[in-house]
């Protein structure tokens, strides 16, 4: 029995478009904040992971590439990658790097240093990204774009690597947003059931 297609089954197109747009104008990176806010709102207000379950464009994209284009080896993920230690450790690391990026944005905002037009991949490799015109906005707005797009591109690349090595949606196992929203839901459920 084939399941009925919904509008949200095509959100992978939005994710792919988002990644492509960043190559033309880095300011589009701001749209990616929705991928942070929406799942947290679902978890906080609804106490569910509907975003991961239905609306995550990245998960769908990885599924399309892994199954549709057969780019996945479909092997089982190693147990250490799905362990709580790794999942929560990666969440802490990811959030630390996120706040570090926010601090860099603040430094540009307060004129401590100027705009750095680079994308940092895997929090290490600096890629010059000077071809996008950011003169129409304040430098801190552009700086946030570079930082946020670095996070989004790095996490997408990690997702692609684990998709190729293991099952298509292996990224979902250690996705920081997925881990965070699952914890919110579990805590929410615990507090409501103990009342």
């Amino acid at each position, binding site marked *: *029995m*084939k*399941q009925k297609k919904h509008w949200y089954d095509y959100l992978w197109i939005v994710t792919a478009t988002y990644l492509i747009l960043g190559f033309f104008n880095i300011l589009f990176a701001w749209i990616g904040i929705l991928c942070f806010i929406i799942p947290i709102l*679902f*978890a906080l207000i609804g*106490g*569910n*992971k509907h975003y*991961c*379950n*239905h609306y995550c464009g990245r*998960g769908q994209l990885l*599924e399309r590439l892994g199954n549709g284009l057969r780019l996945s080896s*479909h092997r*089982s*993920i190693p147990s250490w990658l*799905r362990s709580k230690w790794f*999942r929560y450790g990666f969440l802490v690391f990811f959030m630390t790097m996120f706040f570090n990026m926010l601090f860099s944005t603040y430094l540009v905002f307060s004129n401590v240093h100027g705009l750095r037009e680079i994308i940092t991949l895997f929090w290490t490799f600096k890629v010059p990204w000077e071809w996008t015109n950011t003169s129409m906005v304040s430098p801190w707005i552009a700086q946030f774009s570079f930082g946020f797009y670095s996070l989004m591109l790095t996490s997408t690349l990690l997702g692609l690597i684990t998709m190729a090595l*293991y*099952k*298509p*949606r*292996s*990224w*979902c*196992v250690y*996705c920081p947003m*997925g*881990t965070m*929203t*699952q914890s*919110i*839901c*579990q805590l*929410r*459920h615990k507090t409501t059931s103990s009342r």
Partner: protein
Amino acid sequence: MAKKIALISEECVACGSCLKACPLQAISIFKGSHAIIDATKCVGCGKCQRVCPASVITITERKES
């Protein structure tokens, strides 16, 4: 009655990959915490097991009650 059934371990990350894979809509996500199987619908076909990125689903023999 189907002789097999899917079982989901506590390590489930509630990503929802299995929801779409299940041809009988026998799986749901319990309060954003983990996936649960409706034993009355599951036939143990193993489609959920194949897509589960965390490899937390096993197909076992159904215990006769």
